[in-house]
């Protein structure tokens, strides 16, 4: 059962290697490995479902000497989302990168990205996470620049540098931790911190946490550190944008969540959490506002990512104030659900946007009416994704938002309610600014799908966010609810 933990890393890595070696068959091998990965993640999720938590000491070297892999509910959920999203993106990319010259660059980097994501969600070791982060950052930046235009290069170089700054800061935190606690393992570190031996080690731990979160927040594009995100995500090729927005920033967020709530939980304070929440609120408002003003579809999507990440950070201050219990575990599941829903929705949105861009030759929102009206499936995708972004039922984010509101009220932190309200309405505005163009006087399209291989995956992703996740949340709760340590 624990084999799947390693395979989660090895399968995409092996795929990447093969694709590197055999560029002529890149698309086929790539797709096959992603499928294999999905299968493996399914097994892994099943394992977590049954056993609550899967643990593995790599090479049989127990921490602190060795590296531990742990798959709990949260990891499994993120992994599952990643697997499904990457599968859809891969199918889509097979169509998108029809030019073999571009495909041979895309596939190996893409599989390496997948490797690093899987590694990130599984590793329970601070330094291993650093390496994964760097792998993620490099592959993401390289992928983002595949478009080759100057803007893409500039944006992704900036992304790369920002990422490096973030990971260096993170690494400093890791070094501090090692210097103080002589371990890099989550569980051991958490145990030491919980014991609270000395005030000084608490101080050190807190500083380290601060540094790590500083670094990760940069990578997670938390407002106002999001400056790099819109150009980078807006200029990348569609499948890459999808992966960047749906998965890559999510990984950084996942790490913050993991560190904050699990490893460093004894050190966190309400004030700090409030700061995160405040920044999240800023992200929600500013990101939505900018999305509303964006003139290009992909920019809109990118700013919307900024806003959506803000929602995720809103959970921190609320979770902070809650004692363990149903409300808290619900809320924790809600933040996961929100992340998943956004992952699916945003990837669907970007894939659809990419298709629209291909068909229209541009992505200026004001002039997209004609194209949108010709593409019913893609328009539906945009609508479904938009529904999830706004947080309307039957999307997963609706349920999450409901619980978030409930948490805020139960906590007496009613001001977040106002942020949510404003964010929701702004999201309505920017989503429907786009959807309005889908209605017009163009001739009726004859068929639902224009190009099933490009439109299908996006539609399925969006339907996953709005539809499946909106009603089938119970499995997620099962997955998370039984995972110890996070209650």
């Amino acid at each position, binding site marked *: 059962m624990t084999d799947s933990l390693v395979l989660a890393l090895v399968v995409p890595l092996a795929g990447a290697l093969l694709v590197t070696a055999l560029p002529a068959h890149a698309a086929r091998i790539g797709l096959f490995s992603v499928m294999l990965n999905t299968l493996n993640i399914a097994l892994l999720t099943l394992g977590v479902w049954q056993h609550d938590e899967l643990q593995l000491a790599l090479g049989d070297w127990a921490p602190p000497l060795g590296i531990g892999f742990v798959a709990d509910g949260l990891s499994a959920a993120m992994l599952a989302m990643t697997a499904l999203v990457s599968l859809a993106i891969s199918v889509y990319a097979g169509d998108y990168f029809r030019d073999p010259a571009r495909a041979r660059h895309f596939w190996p980097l893409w599989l390496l990205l997948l490797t690093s994501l899987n590694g990130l969600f599984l590793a329970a070791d601070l330094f291993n996470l*650093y390496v994964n982060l760097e792998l993620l950052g*490099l592959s993401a930046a390289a992928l983002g620049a595949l478009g080759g235009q*100057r803007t893409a290069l500039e944006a992704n170089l900036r992304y790369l*540098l920002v990422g490096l700054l973030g990971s260096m800061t993170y690494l400093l935190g890791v070094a501090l931790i090692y*210097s103080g606690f002589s371990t890099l393992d989550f569980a051991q570190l958490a145990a030491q911190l919980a014991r609270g031996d000395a005030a000084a080690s608490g101080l050190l731990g807190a500083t380290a946490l601060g540094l790590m979160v500083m670094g990760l927040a940069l990578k997670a594009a938390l407002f106002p550190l999001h400056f790099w995100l819109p150009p980078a995500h807006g200029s990348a090729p569609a499948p890459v944008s999808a992966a960047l927005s749906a998965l890559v920033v999510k990984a950084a967020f996942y790490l913050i969540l993991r560190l904050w709530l699990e490893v460093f939980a004894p050190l966190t304070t309400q004030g700090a959490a409030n700061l995160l929440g405040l920044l999240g609120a800023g992200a929600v408002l500013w990101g939505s506002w900018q999305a509303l003003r964006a003139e290009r579809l992909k920019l809109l999507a990118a700013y919307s990512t900024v806003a959506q990440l803000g929602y995720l950070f809103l959970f921190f201050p609320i979770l902070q104030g809650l004692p363990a219990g149903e409300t808290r575990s619900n809320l924790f599941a809600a933040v996961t659900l929100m992340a998943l829903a956004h992952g699916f929705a945003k990837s669907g949105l970007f894939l659809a946007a990419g298709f629209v861009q291909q068909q229209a030759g541009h992505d200026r929102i004001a002039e997209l009416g004609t194209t949108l009206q010709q593409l019913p499936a893609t328009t539906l995708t945009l609508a479904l994704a938009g529904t999830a972004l706004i947080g309307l039922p039957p999307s997963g984010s609706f349920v999450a938002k409901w619980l978030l509101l409930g948490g805020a009220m139960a906590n007496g932190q009613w001001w977040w309610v106002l942020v949510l309200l404003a964010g929701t309405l702004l999201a309505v505005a920017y989503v429907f600014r786009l959807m309005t163009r889908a209605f017009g006087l163009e001739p009726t399209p004859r068929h639902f799908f224009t190009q099933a291989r490009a439109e299908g995956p996006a539609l399925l992703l969006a339907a996953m966010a709005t539809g499946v996740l909106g009603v089938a949340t119970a499995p997620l709760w099962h997955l998370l609810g039984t995972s110890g340590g996070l209650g």
Partner: protein
Amino acid sequence: MDAELLYASAGFILFVLGIWSLLLHRLLIRKLIALNIMGSGVFHLLIATAEHHGEPADPVPHALVLTGIVVAVSATALALSFGRALRGDGDD
């Protein structure tokens, strides 16, 4: 003052200097150097951590530093390549 404390102290200073340079210099090459300086700062700290009086050096931080260096090299290489591509765009 112990050597490792000096190392650590230097490491912090290097780290901060690196950030300063990264943030305030506009040239890519300087930024990359700055990043490497930051890395060096962290590595200094790790080396300092490895030192335990009366014991052999802790191998783990050493290994971490080695890994870190490779990662830093890779990142630098990629970033430089970006810069070259950008320049090539402009010059040709």
